């Protein structure tokens, strides 16, 4: 019975006792640092004038794979801040029970109105506690800690022309067309 590999295994196991433990003991005073892109719960945002950003376009409702967003848009109304007509929504419900956190609603929003947060929604005692109504979504904004993902960020990131070479200047274009004529 070759005892030596067994003893080697036992030595490796014992060595772990003297290394720093990887788990943290609760209650933990520290804060787990989440990456900037961490996505957890949702918030609807206001812009710098205090206006709601959501224009009720229903893009998020259409793209959601789990059909958890339900939106009731109002018609076009005059905005008290800019004076121009824009859409609003009167009711916005997001059922966090069934959300799969795919971030597609964030990606398609043209106004960057819906964003995901890096803090988590606190758990509740009933299913209704996790259905985010419009008030709760606007309240979540005060939690801060927005995730990196937003409509414009995704648009910039996934731009097919991003980081490519600058388009050629006019002179070379003319030369190229003459070459094409000969062939």
């Amino acid at each position: 019975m070759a005892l030596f590999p067994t003893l080697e295994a036992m030595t490796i196991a014992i060595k772990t006792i003297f290394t720093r433990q990887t788990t943290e003991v609760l209650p933990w005073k520290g804060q787990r640092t989440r990456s900037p892109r961490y996505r957890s719960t949702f918030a609807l945002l206001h812009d710098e004038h205090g206006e709601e950003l959501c224009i009720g376009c229903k893009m998020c409702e259409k793209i959601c794979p789990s059909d958890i967003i339900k939106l009731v848009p109002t018609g076009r109304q005059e905005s008290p801040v800019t004076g121009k007509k824009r859409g609003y929504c009167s009711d916005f419900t997001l059922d966090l029970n069934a959300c799969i956190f795919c971030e597609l609603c964030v990606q398609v929003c043209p106004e960057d109105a819906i964003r995901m947060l890096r803090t988590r929604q606190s758990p509740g005692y009933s299913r209704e506690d996790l259905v985010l109504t419009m008030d709760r979504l606007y309240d979540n904004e005060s939690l801060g800690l927005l995730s990196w993902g937003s409509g414009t960020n995704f648009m910039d990131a996934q731009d097919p022309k991003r980081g490519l070479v600058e388009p050629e200047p006019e002179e070379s274009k003319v030369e190229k067309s003459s070459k094409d004529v000969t062939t």
Partner: protein
Amino acid sequence: MTTTNTTNDQFKHLNLPPAITDLPRNNPHISIDDYDPEGDLLVMNLGPQHPSTHGVLRVKLWMDGEVCVKAVPYIGYLHRGVEKLCEHRTYVQITPLVDKNDYVCPMTNELAVNIAFENALGVTPPPRAQVIRTIVAEMQRMSSHLLAVGTWALDLGGALGGGATAFMHTFREREMLLDCFEELTGARFHYNHHTVGGVRHDIPESWSTHVLKALDIIEAKIDSYEGYLTENQVFKARSVGVGILDPKLGLELGISGPNIRASGVDWDLRRDAPFAAYDLVDVKVATAQAGDCYARYQVRIAEMRESVRLVRFFMKNIPTGPICALKQVKLATAVKIPANFSGYTCIETARGELGTWLVTPPGKKKSAMPYRLKIRPPSLHAVSALPWVCPGNNLSDIIAILGSMDPIMGEVDR
């Protein structure tokens, strides 16, 4: 049960080793009345609730004392109708849905379907996206093998015992990889990272440092796992010679990935039918000859090392440029694939060949939803080997075989 038109002709060039291709085949359709008319066999259910069936799998065993005579797996406990759901979702919505098939390495599912969509559209992702896809695929392979080895040691050694120690150690390394993924995509699991035409998240600044640091630690720890398990007397006694998979049987059943490579078949889609950026690099494929559980373990460890090498290679030179070939999807129906298309695309995941058969609706118009999306999971074929491999083994061996085949029931049942 002889078949004349097996797939062996395709693999003739591989020169299968002669020694273990002459294994007598267990008859999985043995009638128990013929075997034992007295009816003294113990009929036992392994699962569906069981600490080590890797998901919800039920295996009905006919046991003659401690030895299994016949084994029949029953699947479908985790069937969620993913393929049916995909028929009513657009191509962008399908990606987060199929994430949940193989829930241990989710990005590979996304990669499979997105490559299928891109082939149907005729779109090539830009080079940066290809390289990012490859890096991420290799990291997923590493994390999947870490989980596979950990849970297999757990099966062998006990939830309260040496196996648990190996399990905790491999999961500690897996956490580092999951943190890297969180930094890249924002989620630790179920990332929705790939899209038709490329990827959705670009690499953040300090990502390469974190990944390379994680790789250094993992490489050192793989040595520690080898020291802990590979030469261990008990481990070898439990796994050498147990569950030998005949390569001919494996090829007939459609088994791919580390399971068949451990039986000597040198077939790896990363090298033989490259996808993503695998044509830029020379993938060294790990094979073993024995075909038993120990060989499968060795192949997985070797693949982990190879993944470390590949990720380091790709991280050194990631091309600049865009990460998506199509404009960002703003409308759900933005991606439309021409009608009357049907085609099969396959990639190499940690478990084997994951294939996608895509059929678009007939007609003239382009459509935003597929007509049929069939997923070919590698674990299904691994589970189908159980009636052939299990008979003649103890119950403990069956657990070891099941663990070393590494099936994931989410992918088997979809």
